[in-house]
């Protein structure tokens, strides 16, 4: 048995994992990052449109600050998120953007003076303030009151990932590529690292670490129709679930992105609509204003996706040989804008659709895009249930996003959570708790269990084909656990998935190729993914309300009275067929922003009994206190939860420098 020792083991080489590793390294910890693929190939690179941070440098961002970003994020979440975490996040996001600027990310910058933009299908001239010349600019995104999304053309995630990955090379952090964590080493109380499989030679080895951080991204591949990369199979979350003591939070909260190209499911950025693109139906009619007069195409993603599906169901979908879809029209933005700011979109349209988006409309339909749920952690990223285990990024349910994430908030979360959780990991390692007393017998036992499991599966000659089970699961999830859910459909899904899980115990392999053996990899992962799919489907079946991206046709109202709580899914016994669900209440009496209408979408929520009282308290405090920081502190203190060097106020241009009242329609 090969054993590798380190202080900190980070599982996942995307933005969240690398940034957390950097934070721990800076505090003197020895860090090893494991990655399924070379880290620069991680799915973080696919974030196109940008990262939200309330810099407020531009005319349309004037007046933006943490408070506005906080409100947008909470409304976006449909009051399902943790407001303390949201506060920590919006406060740190400007620092993260500025740090990345220093690390080399070529953020697009403000050009002072007049420029033409498209707003609500009108050409408008904006005059950017002279004081902002050369500062980081921002574009509009859905569900936001200000233009807040900082960007690098439409390759934002790529530029961020390369800068952060290069920084890990500069800091000499080893990344062990093509390595997959297959189980956690733990004794039921504390985590000691992971058993890992080398995806080149197929050998198993043990990584023993004082702290372990899972940052493996989302699980979109449990769906057939998804924008996610093929590596987004949720295995990091699954191995945490399989400990039996670490819960996954809000797994039923799954985001569908409105504009995936049809039928391939490849993402085209929300920046298309942020920059003025329109959604059109079979008649060429711009239909979103009919449903959402306030925000139109720029309502939150859950709302736009739902409206699109409803419009298709109303018979207004366009049709091609693969089925029904709608159109994304960015022709009005002009070739120059598309060539400069939407070039990935242009390339994707050329290569996969054979069209020029400056001249032709793009066929789109919503597809699975983001996992709000994941490994449930506290505000420091410490996982519930196992000391020494942390999680951050999409793999975690830190709970910034609740039941719907705003565009531009996830790539922001990766680096912000990395900064915060990485410090917490370093704190843990520096504390007495961080000392480790692990027995070699325990490591050996965990290792032997995996060796036995893999040899059994490699030699299995049962009648089930893992590929077929996988595809049936993906079809089931897209069909019954998608944008519109019903009790009946979800029951069908749960029953189907239960039977697939049973069948997965009888998988047979056709080949026994030496090395990693891709067939064995698929078979092994399928068993794990089925458990995740069951957490999603069963959680959705139990949640008899509609909140954010979780929409139940049979329970169309948000029900704060019964469902202002977070689902925790456990898999206590390896033999159980469905997860054990527990719930964790969200406390209205501590909310800075009590539940209300989001400003878009449905208006008929069922109130929590404490909402009115809390609202009155908040209103009274707001009437008393003038200073926004003091008011915020009295409503929901959060700064003490941040590492000390991240607690300071964020500087912005003086309001007089940005707010120029000379926006004129031509």
């Amino acid at each position, binding site marked *: 048995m090969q054993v590798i020792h380190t202080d900190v083991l980070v599982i996942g080489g995307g933005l969240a994992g690398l940034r957390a590793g950097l934070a721990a390294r800076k505090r003197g910890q020895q860090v090893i990052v494991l990655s399924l*693929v*070379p*880290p*620069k*190939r*991680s*799915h973080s*690179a*696919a974030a196109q449109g940008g990262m939200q941070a309330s810099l407020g440098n531009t005319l349309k961002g004037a007046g933006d600050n943490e408070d506005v970003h906080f409100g947008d994020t909470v409304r976006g979440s449909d009051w399902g998120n943790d407001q303390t975490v949201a506060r920590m996040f919006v406060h740190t996001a400007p620092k993260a953007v*500025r*740090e990345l*600027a*220093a*690390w*080399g990310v*070529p*953020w697009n*910058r*403000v*050009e002072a003076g007049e420029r033409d933009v498209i707003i609500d299908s009108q050409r408008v001239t904006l005059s950017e303030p002279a004081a902002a010349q*050369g*500062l980081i*600019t921002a574009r509009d995104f859905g569900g936001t009151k200000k233009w807040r999304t900082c960007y*690098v053309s439409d*390759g934002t995630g*790529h530029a961020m990932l*390369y*800068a952060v990955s*290069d920084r890990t*090379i*500069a800091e000499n952090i080893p*990344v062990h*590529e*093509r390595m997959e964590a297959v189980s956690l080493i733990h004794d039921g109380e504390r985590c000691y690292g992971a058993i890992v499989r080398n995806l*080149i*030679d197929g050998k198993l080895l043990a990584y023993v670490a004082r702290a372990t951080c899972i940052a493996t991204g989302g699980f979109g591949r449990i769906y057939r129709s998804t924008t996610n990369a093929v590596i987004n199979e949720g295995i990091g979350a699954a191995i945490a679930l399989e400990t039996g003591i670490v819960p996954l939070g809000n797994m039923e909260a799954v985001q569908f992105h409105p504009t995936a190209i049809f*039928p391939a499911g*490849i*993402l085209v950025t929300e920046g298309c609509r942020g920059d003025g693109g329109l959604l059109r139906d079979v008649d060429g009619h711009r239909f979103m204003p009919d449903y959402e007069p306030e925000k139109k195409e720029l309502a939150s993603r859950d709302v736009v996706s739902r409206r699109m599906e409803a419009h298709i169901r109303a018979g207004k979908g366009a049709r091609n040989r*693969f089925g029904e879809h709608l159109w994304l029209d960015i022709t009005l933005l002009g070739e120059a804008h598309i060539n*400069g700011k939407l070039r990935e979109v242009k*390339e994707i349209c050329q*290569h*996969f659709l*054979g069209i020029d988006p400056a001249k032709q409309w793009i066929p789109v339909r919503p597809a699975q895009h983001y996992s709000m749920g994941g490994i449930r952690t506290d505000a420091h990223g410490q996982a519930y249930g196992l000391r020494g285990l942390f999680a951050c990024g999409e793999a975690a349910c830190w709970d910034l996003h609740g039941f719907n994430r705003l565009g531009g908030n996830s790539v922001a979360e990766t680096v912000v959570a990395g900064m915060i959780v990485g410090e917490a990991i370093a704190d843990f390692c520096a504390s007495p708790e961080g000392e480790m007393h692990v027995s070699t017998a325990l490591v050996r036992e965990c290792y032997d269990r995996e060796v036995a499991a893999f040899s059994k599966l490699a030699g299995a000659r049962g009648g089930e084909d893992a*590929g077929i089970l996988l595809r049936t699961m993906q079809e089931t999830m897209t069909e019954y656990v998608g944008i519109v859910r019903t009790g009946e459909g979800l029951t069908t899904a749960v029953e189907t998935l239960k039977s697939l899980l049973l069948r997965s115990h009888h998988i047979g*392999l056709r*080949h026994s*190729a*030496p*090395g*990693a053996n*891709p*067939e064995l990899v698929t078979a092994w992962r399928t068993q794990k993914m089925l458990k995740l799919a069951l957490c999603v489907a069963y959680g959705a079946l139990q949640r008899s309300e509609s909140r954010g991206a979780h929409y139940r046709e049979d329970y169309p109202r948000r029900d704060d009275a019964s469902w202002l709580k977070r689902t925790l899914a456990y898999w206590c016994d390896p033999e159980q067929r469905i997860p054990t669900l527990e719930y964790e209440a969200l406390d209205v009496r501590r909310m800075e922003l009590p539940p209300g209408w989001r400003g878009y979408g449905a208006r008929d929520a069922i109130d929590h009994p404490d909402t009115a009282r809390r609202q009155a308290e908040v209103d009274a405090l707001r009437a008393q206190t003038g200073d926004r920081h003091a008011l915020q502190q009295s409503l929901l203190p959060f700064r003490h939860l941040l590492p000390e*060097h*991240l607690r*300071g*106020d964020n*500087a*912005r241009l003086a309001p007089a420098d940005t707010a120029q009242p000379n926006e004129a329609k031509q």
Partner: protein
Amino acid sequence: MISILRRRPKPGTPRRITLRILRHNPADPASTPHQQDFLVDEAEGMTLFIALNEIRATQDPSLQFDFVCRAGICGSCAMLINGRPSLACRTLTQDLGDVITLAPLPFFELIGDLSVNTGKWMRGTSERLRTWVHNDAPVDLDALEAPMAPADAEAIYELDRCIECGCCVAGCGTAQMRERFVGAVGLNKIARFRIDPRDTRSDEDFYELVGDDDGVFGCMSLLGCHDVCPKQLPLQTQIAFLRRKLAMVGLRGS
């Protein structure tokens, strides 16, 4: 791809295409490199990503290849397609003939079949060329960011778009002869940090990194890199410009 060259099958009758794949599994002592043919019924809009996954699902589960984003942005799936380094995920079969040959990228360590270890080489090159912003000034995270000319940011991104797929190295004449040649990917990175105002390094510093035959003076200007770059990076002008600038450093120093 020039659209007039696209061969379109007659409606209703799927074309049967042959994927002729160079196979070898170094983990298997009995394996020797050989070509193997797989027949696939072409579907509309079929990419090599779809075709290869179909082969693995229905014909040979041991076939090795790498895909991640399947959208042409991550650089995982570079391989020789009919002899030319390209990204498989965004290559449509309809743009190719009835027989499509696939082989792993040359130059890089073979993992198995079409999978090569570009990641290991890229990390090594990054370490060697120190591809990060060198600036020791402390960053005040609470303060306004330092301004940058918008055109500078755009010029950096133009070069920052490299996805480290390895196509340029696979298409490089010099790399065939010089194992330590940094390739267009390496030179482009030097060019990228050279124009970054945040990087404090001088041309003398860059000369130390690539001012030799394993660097910018090793390039023979065959420029296969420029022809095959899937991101159409301006490699030709960047290499020429870098060579001129660093030649001046060399002349000054001699």
